């Protein structure tokens, strides 16, 4: 067993350091942690409404999640309500909404959008405060791709989204190794 104590490990030439060979396990010691190795579920964010939002009938409307529970890399904009990851890769996104109404109507839809185009949709009747939750694994380029959430209702009149943080929320985190 050998022991090497250094402060900086750098390649003799080039810009790549290779650790281990195929079949090896590169293990951190008990209690040790690593950062910046790509092995973190970040960027990550979680947001909730900051106020009651009124949704006009038959109109796709960007959901205004204006309060951040956390935003590890400042990738969520509370002005545009967009998540623009600054690291490329795949992310797990989720959104949940609920209209503050016990009235029944036929059509609600929540969407996850990428750069303004639909990426995932979920539609449902509105029956007695029923909520909608939608999840999706998405691919982001880490520079310009942005994601937001929209909701639509066709009740025939304007309806309010619940401002309860337990009923309306959204978030995302980066997946590792994909």
């Amino acid at each position, binding site marked *: 067993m050998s022991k090497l104590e250094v402060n900086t490990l750098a390649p003799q030439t080039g810009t790549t350091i290779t*650790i*281990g060979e195929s079949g090896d*396990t590169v293990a951190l010691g008990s209690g040790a942690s690593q950062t910046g190795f790509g092995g973190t579920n970040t960027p990550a964010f979680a947001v909730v409404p900051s106020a009651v939002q009124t949704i006009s009938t038959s109109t796709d409307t960007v959901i205004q999640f204006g309060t951040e529970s956390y935003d590890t890399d400042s990738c969520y904009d509370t002005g545009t309500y967009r998540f623009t990851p600054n690291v490329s890769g795949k992310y797990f996104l989720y959104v949940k909404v609920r209209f503050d109404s016990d009235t029944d109507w036929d059509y609600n839809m929540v969407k996850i959008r990428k750069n303004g185009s639909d990426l995932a949709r979920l539609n449902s009747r509105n029956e007695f405060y029923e909520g909608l939750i939608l999840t999706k694994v998405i691919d982001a380029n880490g520079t310009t791709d942005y994601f937001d959430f929209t909701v639509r209702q066709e009740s025939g009149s304007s309806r309010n989204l619940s401002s309860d943080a337990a009923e309306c929320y959204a978030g995302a985190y980066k997946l590792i190794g994909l």
Partner: protein
Amino acid sequence: MAGTLKVGTITTPSGSGSITIPSGVSLSGGVANTPNFFVRSDTTGFSLSAGSHTKVTSWTTPEFDTASAWSDNKFTIPSGQAGKYCVSASAYFNYTGSAKRFQMSIRVNGSADGLATISATYNNSAKISYTKEFSVGDYIEMYLYQDQVNSTAYTAANNAEQTFLSIYKLIGA
């Protein structure tokens, strides 16, 4: 060859670029979404009375519980494991009548934290998925509720595929 490498920094000469772990090499000890926990309900469920929030206790043995954090039908954030977690859950309601409100709630330290409300019309399930920052000792439970006006109790959580609780820690978040 076995060995110990102690370094303060592993970096490239330029301070940027790539440090590569070759294909086929795995990295362990810190890069894992643990604690990681998953439990399902049994196929019997329980009788859910109208008008009262009832804690789900019909859980089976967890399929995995890396930190042994599950006890007394609740998941408790273990010592040294504070941080952000992803919580996903589903609850099944065995109800085929006209629509009425059913609700599954995730409670943290006894207070409602995440709510999923459905209008069950035919054996529907309420689902939830979200992330949250937890402190050591915070405990997470699932409660169910229904408000049928006829005060009838209905069976709930009797579908193992549609009644579950999943909790895992995010890395570095």
